[in-house]
Structures are given as C-alpha cells and as structure tokens.
C-alpha cells in the first residue's frame, strides 16, 4: 500500500483543480459551501452536473463506454477531495450513483442506450422508491404490488422517504410481483416515469423545516414490462447490488477533511472563553485534534477498502457506520463553534436542499454565517445513521460477517 500520489495522479489533480477553477461559478460554489444537509440545492446541483457532463466527468465511476469518466479509485478520490475543497455541490446520487450502476450491471442494451445518456445529461432526474411505511429496516416486507397485464405492469401502493421525488421525472422502484416462499423473492426492480397518470407525490417536512423528503402514492400506474431491470421476481439481486454501491461506493473522508477545515476556520473567527479565539481555547483545540485523528485513521481505512479487489462486503458497512457517525460528529463540533448563535433559525443564510416552510427572515441574518448553518446541519444529519440501512442494521450485517 502506497500513500503517496504518483506523478500521473498529481498531474490529474492539477487538471481537476484547473477545471474546477475555470468552471465553478460563484453561484454554484455557494450552493456547495452553504449546504444544510448531504443534499445540494436541486437547481444549482443540476447546473453543475451539466457542466461536468460537457467535460465527460458527470459519472466518475462509470466505464467510458457508457459515457462515464472511467476513473481509477485513486482518481475518484482525488476528484472528490478537490471538489469539496473548491466548494462544488455534489451531483444528485439517485441517478448516477445508484440507478446507473444497476442499469449498467443488470439492464438490457435498450435500457442502457435510452436511460444512461439522459441520466448523465440531467434530462432525467431520478428518485428512489424503496422504503414503505411498513418496510424500512425490513425492506423485504415491501407491499407495493405490480400486476401483470399484457405489455404492462399495473402498479399500486405507497413509498416513503423519497428524496427529491417532487422534482424527479423518473424513479427506480422495488415492487412485489409475486408472493413466494421467502419475502426477498417475488420482488422486481422497476423504472417508472414519474409523470405517468396515477403517480402523486406528497411532501414530508423535516424538523429543520426543509422539504427534501416525500411520500409517493401509485394508483394503478401502467408501466411497460420493458422497464423491468434484471429478471421479474429477481429485483432483490439488483437491489442488493445497488445498496452495496450506495453504502460503499463513495468515500466519506474527502468531505470530512473539508468540513474539519471549515470548522477550524470558523473557530478562528469567533471569540473563545480564554481571551483569544475559540480555536485557541484548549478544550476546543483538543476536540478538534481528536476529530482530525479519527478522520485520519478512517481516511486510511477508506484507501484500504477501495483498493481491495471484488465486492465491498464488510467494508461497505464499516464505511457507512463510521462515515455517517463522523459526519454527525462534525455537526456537533459545528454547534460548538456556532456557540449562542447556534440556536437561531436562519435558513436564509444557507442553501438548503429543498424549500423551507417554517417562518424565517428574508435575507439578513444575525451572527456569523457558519453559525446560521450549523443547527440545520446538526438536525438534518441525524438522518445519516437512519437512511440507506440504519447503523443498527449495518452492525447486524457486520456481526454476521464475523460469524456471530
């Protein structure tokens, strides 16, 4: 294992840096720097995706034959580090990071030819339809039914926790096509046009007042059989493939490092209790050092995990648990830096990932900008240990992996 970049990788880093420098507008940078959750503001994230797409960089992990960048693990890591350092927003993960690999891995030639280019260009904006009110951690208990009716499947039921479904025009769904011996059997992976008759989307407001999540109701929606990915009744195989991708596909450390830097910079701008700035207070300096130590070890773990061959396996769950818990820890440090201003509700100082429905002031805000964002991030990132397989479920997976 080598922790130093090669000359080629350093040249790649310089190329990425120059590209970001030339193409990131102030407006897009703002959307990345002032995020209140892991979700970028829809319009500006999409605008950034289009800029990346023009360069052929919208999908770092896809093979070049499908329009991806075809980067190595090291290149993807370098890109992620440069991207967050430059303040670019993330590209929505539901299409390119989640549905895309499922289509590449299990889709037909026609599906690849139709969906992948539109996913890259942003013409299709995707949402995920997995969880249901009665099927969260126990995903295999899902009930949304799809009945065979000639060339179509007819789909009815309810999904929940559908990020950005209100702005999505396509969704990838898990639906029940048969009741077989095991609940994992009889599930089908289906692509649904969200503009179809019978689709309705209802907002869910988070404790931070943001509308990012939704419920989706399908009422006898007709979906062509041609939109099934993989085999009928074998969607669990596709879903597991995608879940592993969701859990282990992206490194957390680049963003954690950037957030540590932002926390330290903000701590240099606010008063401490010992006469200097907060960054000089001994108790805060210790906390920051401990966080940097944890991230340094975790970053090296991610290097190890990503350079291993084959399926992500155990490391996907380790990365999901450690990554989200460290993300949450960053928000706790953020609240300390925000100090008394950390109780103010001022989303107008931020770029939330969705519309804000709680009353707040129009544009001016009190205190440092960092402090206005800190409580929103703290509240929103509680979701990290719940979504994509709760951290309790991840620990169950690891326990099985240990033979327990």
């Amino acid at each position, binding site marked *: 294992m080598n922790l130093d970049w090669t000359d080629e990788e350093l040249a790649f880093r310089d190329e990425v840096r120059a590209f970001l420098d030339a193409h990131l507008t102030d407006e897009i940078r703002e959307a990345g720097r002032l995020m209140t959750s892991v979700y970028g503001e829809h319009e500006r994230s999409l605008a950034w995706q289009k800029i990346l797409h023009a360069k052929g960089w919208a999908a770092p992990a896809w093979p070049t034959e499908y329009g991806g960048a075809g980067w190595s693990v090291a290149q993807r890591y370098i890109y992620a580090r440069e991207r967050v350092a430059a303040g670019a927003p993330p590209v929505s993960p539901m299409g390119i990071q989640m549905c895309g690999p499922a289509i590449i891995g299990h889709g037909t030639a026609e599906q690849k030819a139709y969906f992948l280019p539109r996913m890259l260009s942003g013409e299709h904006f995707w949402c995920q339809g997995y969880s249901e009110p009665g099927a969260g951690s126990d995903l295999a208990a899902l009930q949304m039914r799809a009945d065979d009716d000639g060339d179509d499947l007819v789909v009815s039921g309810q999904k929940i926790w559908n990020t950005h479904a209100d702005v999505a025009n396509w969704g990838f769904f898990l639906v029940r096509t048969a009741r077989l011996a095991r609940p994992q059997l009889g599930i089908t992976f289906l692509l649904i046009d969200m503009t179809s008759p019978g689709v309705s989307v209802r907002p869910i407001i988070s404790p931070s007042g943001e509308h990012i999540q939704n419920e989706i109701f399908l009422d006898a929606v007709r979906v062509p059989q041609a939109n099934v990915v993989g085999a009928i009744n074998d969607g669990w195989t596709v879903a597991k493939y995608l879940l592993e991708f969701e859990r282990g596909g992206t490194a957390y450390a680049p963003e954690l490092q950037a957030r540590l830097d932002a926390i330290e910079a903000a701590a240099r701008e606010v008063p401490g*209790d010992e006469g200097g700035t907060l960054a000089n207070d001994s108790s805060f300096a210790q906390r920051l050092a401990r966080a940097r130590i944890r991230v340094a070890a975790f970053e090296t773990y991610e290097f190890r995990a990503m350079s291993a061959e084959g399926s992500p396996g155990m490391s996907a769950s380790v990365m999901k648990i450690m990554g989200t818990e460290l993300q949450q820890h960053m928000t706790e440090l953020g609240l300390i830096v925000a100090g008394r*201003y950390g*109780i103010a509700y001022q989303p107008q100082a931020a770029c939330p990932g969705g519309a804000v429905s709680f009353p707040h002031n129009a544009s001016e805000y009190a205190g440092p900008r960092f402090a206005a964002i800190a409580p929103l991030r703290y509240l929103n990132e509680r979701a990290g240990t719940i979504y994509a397989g709760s951290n309790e479920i991840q620990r169950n997976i690891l326990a099985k992996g240990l033979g327990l």
Partner: protein
Amino acid sequence: MSLGGETAPDPVDLMVVMEELGEALVLEPYLETVVTGAALLRASGGPTADALLDGIVAGDVRLALGWAEPGTRYEWAPQETRAERKGEEWVLSGRKSVVIAAPWATHLIVSARTEGGVSLFLVAPDAPGVTLFAYPTIDGRRAADVEFADVRLDADALLGAEGAALPLLERVGDATIAAMGAEAVGIMRRLLQDTIAYTQSRQQFGQPISNFQVLQHRMVDMFMQVEMATSAVYLATLKLDAPAAERARAASVAKVTVAEACRFVGQNAVQLHGGMGMTDELAIGHYFKRATVIEGELGTVDHHVERFARLQPEAAE
C-alpha cells in the same frame, strides 16, 4: 401571590414547575421572566423592581436578559456595552447578541460596564436608540440581537447598586441552570416515554422492534441518563444558597450532566424512531430541538468542565 420578599418562590417549587413545563413543551418565556428576570429584580430591590415583580404576577410584564455580546462567549462580563452617568441620567451604548425572548419582552434587563464595574439596567425595548433584529430560534421561540445607540435612561433604570452585578449574574445564572435543567428533565422523560411507546408499536421482521436487545439496551441507557440528570438538577437546586464556589460547582455538575443527557436521549429518540424521527409531524422532533437548545445555553459542556475544575471546593470548617 407575590414574587418578592418572604413569599418568593422556593427553588424546589420552581424545579417542580419547570419539569412540568418541560414535559408539556411550553414555549412561553417563563424561564426568562419568572426565574431569571424575577430573581434579578428581587436581588436588586427598590420600588421599580417591586412594581415589575407585581406586574409579572399580573401577567403584564415579560422580561429578557441581554448579557452576551458578539465579542464574548459564555463569560458574564460585558465587553462593549457601557453606561455613563450624565447628570441625573445614564447613557447606554453597545450590542447584545441572541437575547432570548427579547421580541416578546416588555422590559429588557441589560448588563453594562460602568465606572464602578458591571451594572444592570432596565431598558424599554421601544426606547429611542434601541434597535432589535429579531429572529426565530430552532425550538420555536424568538430571540434578537439588540443594539443600544446612546440610549438615555432615567436614574431609576439602574437595578441594584452600581458595579455590583457580576456576582449577582453568576448567582442568578446558576439558579437559571438549575431551573432549565429541570425543564430538560421533563423534556427527556417525554422523549424516553415516546420512544418506548414507538418501539413497542413499530413492527419490523414480524415483531415489535422493542424486542431487539440492542434497542432495549439503548433505551435503558437513555433511562439512566435521565436519572443522572434528575439527580444533578436536585444537587444544583439544593445548593443554590450554598457559598458561591460550592453553588457554582453544583450548577456546573447539573449543566454538564443535563447537556450530555439531552444529547444522548435526544439523538437516540430520533434514531429509534427511524425515518419518523426526521419529520416535523411527531412531537419528539420538537422536544429534540428544545433539548438541543438547552445543551448549549449558559455554557457548553467544555465551559462548565473548565469552570468546575477552576473552582476549588471550600475547606470544611
């Protein structure tokens, strides 16, 4: 009923009231008015203070204390807010940050540097030269940053003796920590109750998720944190009349224990509710936000650990 003199509320009575207010998630500025504000007025004495105490009981007076500033963190001493005596009047200038309940207040109590040290002044929020920049807080209350530009105050706006406010603020701050801790205990009891009820009704894998031992242990840990917080609040409340260092150490015990419990109980209440914990639709999200505000108010865990370490216990007589 009166809030002054012999009939002033007993700290234990206030503790019981605050716990109930916490459990019901009452948003009204009771803590700011009846606990902090009234205690400052009572200690200051004089006809103005007495009249305001009667006004609180009548429901006509609501108070907010402006103490912290953009240039200070959790220390009580003001930095930039000053008051100068000009003949019979005082002239007040400076800024206060995150004055909780200020947009609702009929009267502001403001700390300022004066020739003799730190003093407290009573200021009308609509007096000429006073500007409020108001905003909501994450727990559904309101606060404001307040600017004072050569605000002219009558002689009787000075509360108590000039230059004597710092020890008073320390003492009333500790009383506020005790009462706010009791509120937090009420909040955490509700968070725990709701979490137990939710996990007993939520079915996954063919059974209530409360059957899973990992969740049972989590809720037991939440319960123990509530018990430690309750105990620390008793300690702080019963030591409010003790010598200053002993009182302050007990208040820091309460603040640290309550803040850590608020975080653990609040975060795990959300976690065990799963996605439902991340909606605005259930009560727990609202209790969690109030608990989060209480964590940092009047000093973070780090601030109170430092204070506890700095204050030596007095030698036994």
